[in-house]
């Protein structure tokens, strides 16, 4: 489906340089001592992990999931449930548990959805994530529509996550490791097979690959990675609610990929940052006359989305590369 425009698997030297500079800038940012912006950037980096996880499915394997937020929110909820009321829980076992829980959920749902194709896949992933959404939304025991507070950040023993700068670097390391791990996977035989499935699933099947197993593995891995992001989100904000698993969250992460460009993970990071910046910008729009432009941010966001789909479906990275080819 999306083979035509997910490319840039091999990042040109110039883009690699820009990405390296970007990482360096992120590493140095806390030195400016801007606590508010540090927190905002940490949030963007968490969303970048989330967007990269979807990229594995959408950009690499060619599976458009409209329900990816379920695995993101689920890990946050797991953290909320296993954090006791009396004090923090150890990071070193709560993180694996939350990630594993999301992976398990993705494995179970993936078992049903991966056997479908095209439009069906889109609709079924969306329907199942809505199922999870309503399960949490309707049940008071699971927090209901209000969500749950997480009163203590996980305890890391060797460093203090309550410290904003430490938390920033922890998220930064998580994002970097996810990026390099996923890049490594992209070029592994496993990743090559996933790309093959995107380009022509029937042919991969005919050559002898069990495409169902490969797609299910990709779905589970993407779920686990989304879970890591959700865990960090829950730890940072100290609060989880059903919106984290909602349809809008799932659509937003797709938007991030479209903005940045798919199939190479760097675009996902770029997209997550630009999407969040755009969101902040639109929500802070001034009031003109009696019309509160910021309150109606969804109108502008809707228009931006429509314009991007109509005019720039290859994302920022694709656009940058095109500029470079024909200046």
């Amino acid at each position, binding site marked *: 489906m999306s083979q035509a425009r997910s490319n840039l698997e091999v990042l040109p030297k110039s883009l690699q340089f820009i990405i390296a500079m970007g990482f360096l800038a992120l590493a140095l940012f806390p030195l400016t001592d801007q606590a508010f912006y540090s927190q905002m950037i940490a949030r963007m980096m968490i969303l970048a992990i989330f967007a990269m996880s979807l990229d594995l499915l959408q950009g690499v394997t060619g599976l458009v999931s409209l329900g990816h937020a379920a695995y993101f929110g689920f890990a946050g909820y797991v953290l909320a449930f296993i954090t006791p009321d009396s004090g923090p829980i150890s990071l070193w076992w709560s993180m694996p548990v939350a990630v594993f829980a999301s992976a398990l959920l993705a494995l179970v749902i993936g078992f049903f959805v991966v056997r479908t194709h095209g439009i069906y896949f889109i*609709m079924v992933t*969306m329907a199942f994530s809505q199922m999870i959404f309503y399960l949490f939304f309707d049940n008071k025991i699971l927090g209901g529509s209000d969500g749950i507070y997480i009163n203590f950040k996980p305890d890391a023993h060797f460093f203090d996550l309550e410290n904003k700068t430490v938390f920033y670097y922890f998220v930064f390391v998580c994002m970097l490791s996810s990026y390099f791990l996923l890049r490594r996977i992209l070029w592994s035989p496993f990743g090559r097979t996933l790309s093959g499935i995107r380009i022509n699933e029937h042919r991969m099947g005919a050559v002898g690959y069990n495409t169902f197993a490969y797609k299910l593995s990709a779905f589970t891995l993407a779920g686990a990675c989304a879970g890591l992001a959700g865990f960090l989100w829950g730890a940072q904000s100290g609060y989880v609610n059903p919106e984290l698993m909602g349809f809008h969250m799932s659509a937003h992460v797709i938007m991030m990929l479209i903005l940045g460009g798919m199939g190479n993970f760097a675009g996902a990071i770029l997209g997550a940052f630009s999407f969040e910046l755009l969101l902040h910008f639109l929500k802070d729009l001034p009031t003109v006359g009696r019309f509160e432009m910021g309150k109606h941010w*969804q109108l502008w966001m809707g228009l931006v989305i429509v314009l991007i*789909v109509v005019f720039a479906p290859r994302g920022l990275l694709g656009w940058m590369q095109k500029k470079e080819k024909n200046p």
Partner: protein
Amino acid sequence: MDLANFLIQLLNSAQYGLLLFMLAAGLTLIFGIMGVVNLAHGSFYMLGAYLAYWLMGLSGSLTVAIIGGTLLMVLFGLLLEKYLFRYFYERDHLDQVLLTFGLIYIFEELRSILWGDDVHGVAVPALWEWSIQLTDNLSYPGYRLFMSGVCIVFALALYFLISKTKIGMKIRAGAFNRDMAESLGINIGRIHALVFAIGIALASIAGMVAAPVSSVYPNMGSQVLIMCFVVVVIGGIGSVRGALIAAMLVGLVDTFGKVLLPQVSGMLVYVLMALVLLWKPEGLLKQ
């Protein structure tokens, strides 16, 4: 559960199922014939309901509101098709998903700007303000019968249009093989516009007749959209008959689930979908 109660639940599930069918029929036709994933279909339902609320306030008559509202929505649909959707029939599904998601945001905000964010009730027309007394304390409202009646009329009209008329034959030809139909002189662009308008009309009429029962509120479209997706997946994409069977099934499972297993009722419909997918990955009646 005694007989009277059982009967009421049965009528409720049929009414819910028929309403879902009105929505899902348009969705499945647009999928099947133009190959477009339309996430904004729920917004048409929402816009229909708000139009009914607005026009009823102006005219005082639900009939006038339904006729006027449908005309407005059809016109709106034709414009949308001509200037936007037409260019997305050949694009991949991801683009369609994003386009229609953007439209949901736009429609919701326009609704918020035009009619505000409050919940509004819509009066039941006096003609249908009666109920059937089944036992001493159980009764069934006449308006719900009217709703089911409207849905049945439209379902029959749709069946007649698609399987008995010349236009229906062209629609089926276009769905079966677009290029062949075109080379035989069928103006496929016009057929697409027609199908799109039918889909919008059905969705908005569903919203209008449901408005007195459900009242009108923000985001009323998204919940119904997901249910429609489930119906379309169970029925098989492009199959109107499949959508009818699936809608009635979903109506039954949802209504009786709420009575018999209230703790998990929200999930039952999805369990049904999962079971159908295991059994038939392409829906009950694949076209």
